[in-house]
């Protein structure tokens, strides 16, 4: 994809309980991630059974998906931290490659 002028990066998708999203966001902040996309009311089926979308009187039990794209040099920190967070709580993490057109949007080159 280089020929298209795209830059290879890493995409991490995390599905977690709405209650735990704050912890994931804190981790992303601490790892120097510059932004993410958040989808609330995610539904599905998995280890813990069926997860419906939104509940009428409870916003905290639902699932949220966070999608974050980051340069390689930050992946270790994010993945390590996420693995620790998800060790004892429901949630999944998918890591894959992604190609972006504006790498500076995703914190490339400003790693600490």
């Amino acid at each position: 994809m280089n020929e298209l002028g795209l830059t290879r990066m890493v995409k991490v998708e995390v599905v977690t309980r709405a209650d735990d999203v704050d912890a994931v966001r804190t981790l992303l902040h601490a790892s120097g991630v510059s932004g993410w996309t958040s989808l609330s009311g995610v539904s599905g089926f998995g280890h813990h059974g069926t997860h419906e979308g939104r509940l009428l009187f409870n916003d905290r039990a639902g699932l949220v998906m966070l999608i974050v794209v980051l340069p390689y040099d930050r992946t270790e920190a994010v993945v390590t931290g996420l693995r620790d967070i998800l060790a004892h709580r429901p949630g999944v993490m998918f890591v894959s490659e992604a190609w972006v057109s504006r790498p500076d949007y995703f914190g490339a080159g400003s790693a600490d």
Partner: protein
Amino acid sequence: MSVALATGVLLATASAAVCALVAPDPRRAARATGLLLALAAVGAAGLLAGVAAGGDVAGVAARPEVAGVPFGIGVRVDRFDALFMLLVSGIAAVVAGYARRYLDGEPGMAGFQARVAGAAAATLVMATAPSLVQFAVGWIVAGRLLVGLIGYHRDQQRVRAAVRRIGRLFLLGDLALLAGFALLATAAGSADLADVRAAAGDAPGWLLATAGGSLLVAGMVRSAQVPVHGWLPSTLDAPTPVSAFLHAGMVNVAGFLMITFAPVVVAAPGVLTATLLVGLVTAAAGTLFAAVRTDVKGALARSTVAQMGFMLAQCGLGAFGLAAVHLVGHGVYKAYAFLSAGGTVQTRSQAAEAPQPVGPAPRRRLVVATAVLLGVLGLAEALLGATATGLLTAALAGAAGFAALRAALADRRLPAGAAAAVTGAVAALAGGYLVAGHLATDWLALPSSGTPLAVAGAAAVLAALTVLRLVVTRRRAAGLWWWAWRDGRLPARRTAAPTRAPDAPGGPGLTEAGPADAARAAAAVTAAADHVAATWPLDSFVAVNPLAGLERTPFRQATTRLRELGGVRTHLPAARWRQRLRDGEIDEADLTAALAGLPAATGPVPLGGRLLDGTQLRMLVLRHPVPDGPPPASDLLDAVRRRLAARPAGTPATPDLVGERTLAELLDDALGTRIGARVDDLLAGWCAAHCGRPAASWPVPGDGTQGCWSRWREVAAADPAGGTGLAELVDALPAAPERALAVLLRTLGVPRDRWAAYLSRSLLRLPGWAGYARWSQGHPGQRPALTVTDLLAVRLAYELALGADLARRRLGIGPAVDLVAAATRTPVAVAPAGPDAAALARLAALLDLDAAAVAALPEEALSALYDTVAELSPQRQAEVWLAAAEHAYRRRLRHRLDQAPPARRSPGAPLAQAVFCIDVRSEGLRRHLEAAGPVRTFGFAGFFGLPVRTQADGARRGRDRCPVLMAPVATVGEPPAATEPRRARQAWRRAFAGAKASPAGAFAFVEVAGVLATATLLLRLAAPRRLTPTVDGTAATTVELDAALTLDEQVYYAEATLRTIGLTTDFAPLVLLCGHGATSSNNPYAAALDCGACGGNRGGVSAHLAAAMLNNPRVRQALAARGIEIPDHTLVLAGEHDTVTDRVRLLDVAATPATHRPVVEALSAYLDGASAGLRAERATRLPDRPTPGRLPARAADWAQVRPEWALAGNAAFVAGPRDRTTGLDLGCRTFLHSYDWSTDPEAAALEAIMTGPLVVAAWINLQYYFSSVDPHRLGAGTKTVHTVLGDGLGVLAGTGGDLRTGLPWQSVGVGGDLVHEPLRLLGVLHAPTALVDAVLHRNPALRQLVDGGWMALTVRDPHGDRWWEPAPAGGWQVVPAPAASRPRTVESVQVRSTSPVAEKEPTA
């Protein structure tokens, strides 16, 4: 006549002390004591009038001689004495009357009342003393009794230490007084006061200087002058009435001393100057100490230091008359300020929710107002004749007035009328103050003039103080701020101790950490934070499960983990439950059922000629105090020991403490130091300074946007108490908190896989602040920010700084936990778990086995005993007893529900349908209302399904009116007509606060405030209900609702609400939506009494909004299209049930159409009847058993710590048709939610109920549970020592420490007795099990709560008459029918304790 009156005042006060001690019933004793003290105060008022009219009073009863020096015993009262007597006796009467309700039920009440009356009597003896001897006796006795009062909570180590310190200090002051008196008596040849005063001018200078200096020292100690001021703030661990008595009455004795001995002080060379200097230094320092404080009582205590300094400075100026006026004004003000300090939460919350001032401030208005003020002051001075001290007083009044005007007029949108009113009031008060002060000074006829030079000096100091305050608030004077925060204590200089190893690491010596370490630190923080639940600010108290983060693990494991990590108690001890068995509240069958959860019991074994099986042995152990009973007979114990010695021993183990114990704990254990506690103090102090800063007039330096860690990094280095090496460490730590935490963890040598454990343990040292940090992270921007990572980074930095210093000095090693563990580890032989010999001997004694029988016991029988005692450890017993108590309650509840009488439906449609909150308190009102008239009731969460925030235009904060599980979907504004009057009210509040915070003006302010406080006190006495907090009745209307929510959204919420309730057809002419709230005065926990479903707010506003929505024709039209037809003749009306008064207030009744008025009037009548019935029922449950008619008075009672029981007793949640519970008295212990399974084929409504209200109810239930089982660590402890922090974010106990979380002891117990029965919630669902299964299957988090034992479910199958409960292996099992037992009512059960108070009475 006046002599008799003066003697009468003394006798009445002394009799009050005796009465408090001898009367057997504490409540009656307190009442009699209060009456006698009030009588004394009335007598003192009469005496003052008598003295004013008839001149001084003198009467000597005896005139003995000591060492040839004669002295009089009797009374001698001049005008100032009479005024002082009125102040002391008045304050004592107010404090005693207040404490009668405030400390009701507390075991220390009688002693408290006796000491207050005794100290007042001693002070009056001193005030009326005709001689130095009588004066000294009164002075010393009052001081000793005061120390006793300060030690009210003597069970706390820090209180005992403070009492010892204060005792020693007072002794020093007493000795100084005696020395001064001895010199004066020698010089005068008489110990009579009149002789000493008269002879003062003739005595030699050195003698006078020494005597005057001694009196000054005595006065300095009692009135907390710098440098002996430290004792006064340390008294805040005593209940609030002690503080009021102390600050208002007792510290003033120093002023009384100086004024009484004015001739001596004036004649003694240098003493006046020294007095002036001490006073000015104390006034300036005290002002700075008070300016940095963030808690109400802490700031008041330091302000007393400043005010006492000012009073002494007035004496130093020779202005004794002015000092006398200040003494009285400050005394009354400070008493009122302390006693009303609990109302700060409500006041500050109202200020934040009111429209904020709109700037820039209109300058012209301020100029005009200032000109008016100056004109009035100038005129007053001109009329009174300007003197040097008069001009100083006028300048102070001007400073206070200007500060008030500047604060009040800062709002550009303040109406001109309000601005003029404030200006007029300020000018009138300032002018009146000058005139009244002048008249009072003249009337007192005390010397009141100072030399112009001294007055100019004092004015310069006060001006400098004002300038200093202006400068330090603009510049980052961190060093000075820390000095003020530490109350002027200088760091203890430690001589460099020789280190054992000269090559030990010096400096920070930090280990680097990379980004991955920072991420792992962040993840470890997340895991650690699971051990604490978010703590909501007090003004929106939300009940949460303190173990909410551990709900993924079963209750048993989670509580075990918490006990290990935090050392808390998670179950009520068995001893508390045993009494319930004796009382018949728990049956043998319940215990047997509870034991079913244990592994199968052993078979029968021969014991003492009988065959006993394992179950019988277990019952024996459970029913008797085997692990902790009285000591067994020594021969029996020896026999057991011999048998145990012969058993094979387990392998001793050496625990691996690395990572499981913090560095501070390891060092403390090994070296006997108290570093852990010191780190706790430093961190808690920092959090209070940082998070409470909106309340400080000189907040901790830093930008408003700075987080905790960043601010701390900037200022911590200047803290003299932070330990050596802190400054270097702070410099070296990274700016990012996660990175810094990683560096700290690595430097401390904590293995990576133990980071979470280490941080958990660290966090649980201060669970209150950890809880606030969790809340703050989820609510950014609402209050001063604190994150869990910041908190831990600051904690570990302090720990490293202090630990490194100690490890280097004492052990010669670096501060790594593995090094310290290795260096300090002693071979710990942990004995294998097993019962101790004493427990076994007790069990043997219960089986009638003597020593010989034990010796001869077969091995099999001994093993059976051994195993039973080992298995039923105290903790295991507590768990079994909890299960038994739950079994007992649930058995009775099911039995009761089975016996519901057939529903009595009146023919035809009901008069009204009334929807109440599911709150347990609504159960009582619904029951009484249904009995009163043809009204059908429903239960639904009190926010009526409308998750919104309400916020006034321009306000700093709004209110989230929905359960904590939800986020508001929209913000509803407030009608401008309701907002604008609040602008004017806030201008008055700002004027008051502005004058109070003025550095120099505050000295004049307290005198004016004293007059206002006197008026308010008298009003409280005469018409207390006039001071009942007003209920904010203004709510948005359809216009504001339409602006916030689209029509579709409104229809969505309206339909969801009606369908979940099951109210979709057969609408009555009137539908009442009745929220609830509680009116209480001066109560920091007021929000805890409000509606949990409304996020700790009053429910009337939510009801009002929902009613407006359901009355909206467009909403009704859309609902009709969706199958819910609300007829045109149906009116939806809102109401609010006040759970303190049990009155139901119908809202917007005036707007009722004429067609509905008769129905509304009829409903009102039924509601009145229901309210009266519920009051009569509730009155019997309150500890002081008031008559039902007196319940409403509790709402206005500022001393009432228990306005009502709120949700105490809650134990079940019933979701089902009301028919299943109608006519049953469930004792206000059950949440009742309406539900009709027949209209819910997809279980949508059931899912909404089970994932919403049921979970909220479970949290409330667990909050009550944990606040009951460990009121000190998981509850907030006693309310009586609480001090409100910051802008109402929480309370601290006494002199500081952790932020208190959970419910106060007064919400769950009385005195030493626990009243709430801590049972986990039972959800009772009237639905087919298939529907319940569907909901559980779709909601894993809910299933975890049920499977993990956080709550229980029982299902009543509508097709049959059986009860079902979840089977251990999945699916459902029929609840076995209980064995025949005596029928009991479910409402009568209450836990009664029998163990000593000290064990369970929570203290700060």
